[in-house]
């Protein structure tokens, strides 16, 4: 069941560019990336696309399809009307390199600013013990394939270039959450998350969760619990009172603030 698909692809680089119309033959069961590959192999040998696994596992082929941040390899053509023109542009939050490829170094810089897992010594038998229920929350966040679609859609940086400096973005908020929920980690990163990573900039409008191809509940399970942890440290009267009179939870013991 092959048909001719009308594609509108952004071509250009940092100096400028335009949406260009193409027609390419596609068939049943194909995804947007297939259509672009055929375009590349038959009409535009130099069309720049970043991709890798083509299975939704590596998070390389992030772009915007009809204005929505998507993985091109997981966007099926059958979700569109065959008569419809599909518009594909690079992610609009990051500097463009060429065509559909953007410079995502922002994310790698933010990754470097984050203090890593620092576990205490192992058990005497050389192994570590953590219960499944204690690692499950972190495991959800570690499903992240670093496609950076959440970073792309987040209006804090998408609509405000100047915020990039002080804002780590949803991908790294769930990394903070993962580490803060790690049963054996020895750091307390709450202050850092609020101050350096700009957790307070997030106004939980949930677009990150909407676009996550892994279905990670970034806002509900990551960002909001992280905000609540910051509240524990800074804004909760009962926690403050509990600390004063020595009535407090010892679950956080052994952690040092970084």
């Amino acid at each position, binding site marked *: 069941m092959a048909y001719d698909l009308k594609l509108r692809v*952004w071509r*250009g680089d*940092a100096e*400028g*560019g*335009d*949406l260009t119309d193409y027609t390419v033959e596609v068939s049943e069961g194909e995804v947007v990336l297939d259509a672009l590959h055929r375009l590349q192999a038959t009409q535009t040998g130099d069309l720049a696309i970043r991709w890798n696994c083509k299975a939704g596992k590596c998070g390389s082929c992030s772009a*915007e399809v*009809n*204005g*929505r*941040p998507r993985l091109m390899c997981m966007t099926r053509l059958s979700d569109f009307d065959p008569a419809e023109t599909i*518009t594909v*542009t690079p992610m*609009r*939050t990051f*500097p*463009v390199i060429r065509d559909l490829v*953007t410079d995502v170094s922002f994310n790698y810089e933010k990754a470097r600013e984050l203090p890593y897992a620092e576990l205490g010594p192992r058990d005497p038998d050389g192994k570590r013990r953590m*219960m499944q*229920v*204690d690692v499950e929350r972190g495991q959800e966040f570690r499903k992240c394939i670093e496609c950076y679609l959440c970073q792309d*859609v987040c*209006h*804090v940086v*998408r*609509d*405000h*270039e100047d*915020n990039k400096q002080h804002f780590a973005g949803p991908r790294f908020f769930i990394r903070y959450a993962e580490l*803060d929920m*790690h*049963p054996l980690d020895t750091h307390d990163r709450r202050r850092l998350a609020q101050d350096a990573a*700009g957790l*307070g*900039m*997030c*106004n*939980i*409008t949930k*677009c990150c969760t*909407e676009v996550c191809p892994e279905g990670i509940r970034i*806002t*509900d399970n990551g960002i*909001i*619990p992280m*905000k*609540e*942890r*910051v*509240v*524990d440290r*800074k*804004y*909760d*009267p*009962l926690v403050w009172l509990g600390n004063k009179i020595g009535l407090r*939870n010892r*679950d*956080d013991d052994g952690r040092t603030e970084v």
Partner: protein
Amino acid sequence: MATTDHGVTSPGRAHIEARTLRQDRWWQSPLATFVVFSGFVVFATIRAFMGRDYYATPYLSPFYSPCLGDCVEGASDFGQPFAWWPLSAALIILVFPLGFRMTCYYYRKAYYRAFWLSPPACGVAEPHTSYSGETRFPLILQNVHRWFWYAAVVVGLVLTFDVVLAFRPMPAEYALGDGETSGIHMGLGTLLMLVNVVLIWLYTLSCHSCRHVVGGRLRHFSKHPVRYRLWTWVSRLNTSHGRWAWYSLFSVAVVDFYIFLLATGRIQDVRFF
């Protein structure tokens, strides 16, 4: 709404003029939120400032409960410590449920999108040229959501008490045809209040702060099995927090309006027994 060079049209990014290339009706959801919320605010403001028609024996409107000001007879179950208050008694207590909802993580999403257009929808550029999120006054106060949650639990208990009272025996003049005056009573008002309080509790208990307080703050669930169990329950409710927020908003308005109709004598309560 002029495009600026702060956002998607910043230098270096792919040069595309349009604020969004979305082709679906992305504006539908924020628009609906805007209309409904605005409607509720207008309704609630009018009702809160009216200062009357909030009590129809034995039903007390949730906007006025607990009634601590100079309230009509029978409405004050907790005394009238604010009897000197010159304005509507609703204004004394409404700050708590209002504050709870204003700082609620779900409502924040809804009104930031629908009222402040920050952003109006995902992948649609917002009109503002600068943005500081919840880092400065007044929005930094969103962090006190938990304080309001503590208060909301108290409010929930009071409203539950109101429902119990809504079952109480009716005075003689309200007796049904056969002259029965004793024993518990139930009318449509009781039912509405019951539904309302259930939804209020679902909303209150599915709150993100509640989820955090009951167990979410722990790092070792395995060492706190009971709190872990509570946390899983709350987590399950929490996935529908937005739904409970809407339903309970409607139910509060419906109960109040029903009591208004009763108190102004426009309708008669439907009595079940």
